[in-house]
């Protein structure tokens, strides 16, 4: 049961073989049993979870089941929720309780989902290993000496260890896909503008996008189809976004006629050899399923990380100005004056990585430096989008490794921000271009999961879902689960 997909649990609920309360209880028990080993959840309110499940069972008796009726979903601590704290895993939001639900949370509730709790994450989603969380790091269920990836590390570990069948994450530079890859899950970053950002605590507004982390491609499609849709309360949410039947898109069983681009910039020296071998083996399998592999180039890839680490901190530096100790959040004791209140409250409230990015962003936007940094980075961003546009004139979809390395040891890179930033080298360009991308498991390196990333043109998640479903159907990587938590490797 704990490692079953949402789709399977849904079938059992529909068949009356189990109830939402039984399902919720099973996962609550597992959280009670394993969360101390993983630190995946930072807030759990079992009574509230069971109350939601009971309400769902009652609803099912009276009405047709809603799309996510009774299905447990965990939520990254970056989504504002009316019940309980929303802290973005930062001390600056130590006592914060949002008086509103994020738009996505409202969608989930309306679809009958049971919200399981808040998952751990890098502070303000700034990190690639979940080690910047104010609530401590998260352990990778496949090897608890290793990090689960970040910033949605708590969501990844919770799903991978079977503490919830699915979770929500957010992806600014790879924060869904990289942890999904490092824990053997499916994770999708939808096209920018597909999912409302309202009520999701902003990191970098032009890059942030919420998405699901699940065990199967179909689960990802099912969850995304509930999350999406225009929201008049988010001006960057696109009103007339092209849409399709998300579950039907997962019926693909072969790849006949599909042209898959293999960009040379994503298969490079210095990446983990086994990761490369696994991803190349996956592409061979795709050929066997009928796809044509086309060597392509995305020539500006090497500048993506640099551009990202100017743009994202620039936006973050002003997005985080509202944490000023005036209206909510942490305030230092006995401030001498206004200046002292600002300085000490923010110094005490923010962790080192968040401060580093605020300083970087403030510098990049400063008068005299703006043109050299922010404006230049925006130009690079345009070139990167252009690269993808040209590539998609030749191919239908692009396949790459999600991460150059499998999960690394906790503490291994914390002293070296540049090396840490390179963890996202294969995921960042997608955010800069606003494209949809999905990671799915495609093998193991040193007994740790390896992720295969699919990238499609804007609004063509259906192309991704078809390819990923065909690959998933032909392989069994998605059925593996960590033995230590009762799974089958």
């Amino acid at each position, binding site marked *: 049961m704990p490692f079953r997909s949402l789709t399977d649990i849904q079938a059992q609920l529909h068949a009356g073989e189990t109830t939402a309360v039984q399902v919720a209880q099973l996962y609550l028990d597992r959280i009670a049993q394993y969360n101390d080993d993983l630190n995946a959840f930072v807030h759990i309110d079992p009574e509230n979870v069971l109350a939601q499940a009971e309400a769902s069972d009652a609803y099912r008796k009276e009405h047709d089941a809603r799309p996510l009726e009774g299905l447990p979903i965990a939520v990254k601590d970056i989504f*504002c929720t009316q019940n309980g704290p*929303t802290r*973005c895993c930062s001390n600056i*939001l130590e006592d*914060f309780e*949002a*008086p*509103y639900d*994020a738009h996505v949370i409202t969608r989930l509730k309306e679809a009958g989902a049971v919200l399981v709790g808040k998952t751990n994450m890098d502070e303000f989603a700034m990190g690639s290993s979940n080690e910047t969380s104010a609530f401590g790091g998260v352990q990778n269920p496949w090897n608890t000496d290793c990090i689960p990836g970040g910033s949605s590390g708590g969501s990844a570990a919770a799903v991978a260890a079977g503490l919830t069948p699915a979770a929500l994450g957010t992806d600014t530079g790879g924060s869904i896909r990289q942890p999904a890859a490092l824990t053997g899950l499916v994770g999708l970053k939808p096209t920018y503008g597909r999912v409302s*950002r*309202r*009520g*999701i*605590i*902003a990191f*970098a*507004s*032009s890059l942030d996008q919420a998405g699901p982390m699940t065990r199967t491609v179909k689960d990802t499609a099912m969850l995304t189809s509930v999350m999406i849709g225009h929201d*008049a*309360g*988010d*001006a*960057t949410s696109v009103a007339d976004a092209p849409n399709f039947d998300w579950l039907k898109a997962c019926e693909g069983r072969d790849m006949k006629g599909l042209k898959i681009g293999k960009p040379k910039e994503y298969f490079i020296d210095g990446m983990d050899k086994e990761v490369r071998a696994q991803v190349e083996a996956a592409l061979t399998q795709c050929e066997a399923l009928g796809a044509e592999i086309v060597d392509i180039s995305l020539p500006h890839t090497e500048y993506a990380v640099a551009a990202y680490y100017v743009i994202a901190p*620039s*936006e973050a*530096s*002003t997005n985080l*100005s*509202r944490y*000023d100790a*005036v*209206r*909510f959040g942490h305030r230092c004791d006995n401030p001498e004056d*206004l200046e002292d209140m*600002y300085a000490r409250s923010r110094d005490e409230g923010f962790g080192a990585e968040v401060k580093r990015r605020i300083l970087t962003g*403030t510098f990049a*936007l*400063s*008068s005299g430096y*703006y043109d050299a940094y*922010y404006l230049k980075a925006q130009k690079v961003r345009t070139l990167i989008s252009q690269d993808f546009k040209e590539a998609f004139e030749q191919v239908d979809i692009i396949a790459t490794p999600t991460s150059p390395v499998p999960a690394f040891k906790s503490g291994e890179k914390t002293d070296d921000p540049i090396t840490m930033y390179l963890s996202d080298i294969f995921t960042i360009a997608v955010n800069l271009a606003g494209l949809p991308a999905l990671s799915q498991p495609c093998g193991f390196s040193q007994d740790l999961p390896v992720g295969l990333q699919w990238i499609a043109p804007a609004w063509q998640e259906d192309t991704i879902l078809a390819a990923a479903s065909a690959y998933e159907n032909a392989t069994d990587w998605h059925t593996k689960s960590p033995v230590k938590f009762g799974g089958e490797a």
Partner: protein
Amino acid sequence: MSWEVVIGLEVHCQINTKTKAFCGCSTEFGAEPNSQTCPVCLGMPGQLPVLNDVAAKKTILTGLAINADINLESKFDRKNYFYPDLPKGYQISQFAVPIVEGGYIDIPTKDGEKRLGVTRIHMEEDAGKSMHEGLDAVSHIDLNRSGIPLMEIVSEPDMRSADEAIAYLKQLHQIIKFLGVSGADMEKGQFRCDANVSVRQKGAPLGTRTEMKNMNSFRFIKQAIEFEVLRQIEIIEDGGEVKQESRLWDSVKNESRSMRSKEEAHDYRYFPEPDLPPLRVTQEEVDAIKAGMPELPNQLRKRFETEFGLSAYDADVLTQTQSLAQWYEALVASHPANPKQCANWLANELLGRLKELNKDISESPISAQALASLLDRIADNTISGKIAKDVLDAMMASGKNVDAIIDEKGLKQVSDTGAIDAMIQEVLDANQGQVEAYKGGQDRLFGFFVGQVMKASKGKANPAMVNQRLKELLG
């Protein structure tokens, strides 16, 4: 030495929308502190701005009224600074590409009309209000104003005196009122002005400017500019240098003081607001806004002069506000025979009385039609102009119509020759001595007889007839 003054003005004008610029909160003035706020204008985590279209449309209308270009694509930027009444830590504004660029306003000067350039109008949101007075060791913040839409109207440095600056501001204020895009109530801070002032020798390059911040009365603005000009000239003539700085006008002490030097100025770190896509409008939308534009003060003034034969002065008085101009046009429509007389009665008689009552034309107790019927009674000789003034008082006090008052008070003018002759004879009989003197050549006694007859008639005799009959009867 001959000094030239150079002035540029920045006007912050509250756009009168029902709801705030980026959220649904009310913009009503004077509510309980912080009662008109929501997670968006409180800057809470995850909250996003959505532009109020009405604010954009009103800014476009203002741009069209000052002959400016409308940018079909404009952009929002963040202006970053920390202050407790700025909840997000940044103000959403337009920096790189404002919605309106390049207009002008014509002002009257003694050398004829002068054209003053308007650089740009951009939209932005207001901050809240900090309150320090009467509080010990704490400040209070009211965020009702946070997120109220403003337009900032930036002029070219085209003004050469405080009087020109005031003429520009009054003209702009009037246009804005006519357009109905702002209450522009200066006491409520809905129309506030920063003035950039410098002095130079005629023909020399621009001098160092100082900025006088946040003034909300024409009188203070004039005083502040004049003070600043003298201050700068004195510094330079004493061999000193003007420092670039922001200054605050103290209207109690009638002087300004330094607020912030150039070195202390903020680096606002402007950059494109990622939460808002560029604001796009179509030429068709702009044309539709233009089609709905009311007649502007300048156009009205010129039309009143040509169509109704008014003097420039009267035309100016009657176009001060849209409601006054409309009132005048309604009056002329009901009494078309004499537009000039309409202007006199409205401007001198009615407005004078309203002023004593501390009322606006829109609060007048009598309608334009009622005043027209009074003028009709003068025209048809029912009453004299002098009696009409008393009738007007009675109409305003009682709200009764003109004929009822004339009947009630027996004010109907006497135009009957027999009755007038009888009154004249009575006066002449009673003043034999003056009659003799008049006949002996003292012509100016004629006025005395007119006065005596009018007095005898209690003002009701038709003055023209009295004149005519007197001449005849005195031979």
